[in-house]
């Protein structure tokens, strides 16, 4: 069972949450002027890192608020949680987790 720390409700089971994909993706300020490739990049392409990823989650069965989480995509370990609009925590790469 994976536990997620909702910044509003506290620690809850993963199944109460829904995943919202990679966080901190900014919509281009001038969509009319950029190329199709750049627009496609914004819409479809994600970093998909092996390791630490910053991502969005929503507490869909709880307070229904969006927030951000830091997760290691290799070990599935959550390394931090923070509200939308807050500065993401600095996470050091931990080699121990990756064999």
């Amino acid at each position, binding site marked *: 069972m994976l536990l997620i720390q909702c910044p*509003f*409700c*506290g620690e*809850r*089971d993963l*199944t*109460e949450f829904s995943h919202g994909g990679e966080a901190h993706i900014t919509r281009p300020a001038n969509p009319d002027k950029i190329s199709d490739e750049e627009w496609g990049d914004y819409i479809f392409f994600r970093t998909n890192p092996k390791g630490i990823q910053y991502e969005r989650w929503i507490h869909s*069965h*709880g*307070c*229904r*608020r969006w927030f951000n989480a830091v997760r290691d995509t290799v070990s599935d370990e959550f390394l931090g949680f923070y509200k939308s609009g807050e500065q993401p925590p600095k996470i050091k790469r931990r080699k121990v987790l990756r064999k």
Partner: protein
Amino acid sequence: MVDTKVDFKTHRTSPLDGAVWPVGPITLSEKKFLGKINIRGNADDAAFLAAAKKALGVALPLAANTVSMRKGKKAVTVFWLGPDEWLVHSADGSQISLLKALQTAFKGLHTAVTDVSDYFVVIELHGSTVHDLLARGCPLDLHPRTFKPGDCAQSYFAKASILLHRVDDDHYTIQVRWTFAQYLWDYLVQSADMMAA
């Protein structure tokens, strides 16, 4: 001429009318026709908090997953739903005047007050083994060290989103969307049967 005047108070039915609960260590009943009002507002705004306290007679709970209650004639239960969202339970019929009182008190403030009385159904559970029953569909840790009497939490039971309130040690209320009420009731009946077997 036929008298077409209908007294809605005597003719209305609730979503769980006729639902029967098996005899056992746990008793279940529907708390019918409770008034329910949803409040949205800025918890950092002192004017909003003061206005809410004036209209409800009790302060909005600001700590996560807590409930504040007013006893007596104008009894209300106020649930924390989120950092800017609350839910009020009040006696049958009182929600109309309460809604007006809140709207008057919030005049000029950035808020939203909505009557959601008919949207939800409240089920009351009593019994010494009620935790085992809830554990059959709810992922919450109901141990008193994390979920004390007076706490509330939004979660799910099986496939239904619920608002769980621990009134006392062995006494809970579950609020569920009315379209899920029959489903939740049947699930609870079946779970209780399996526990008894």
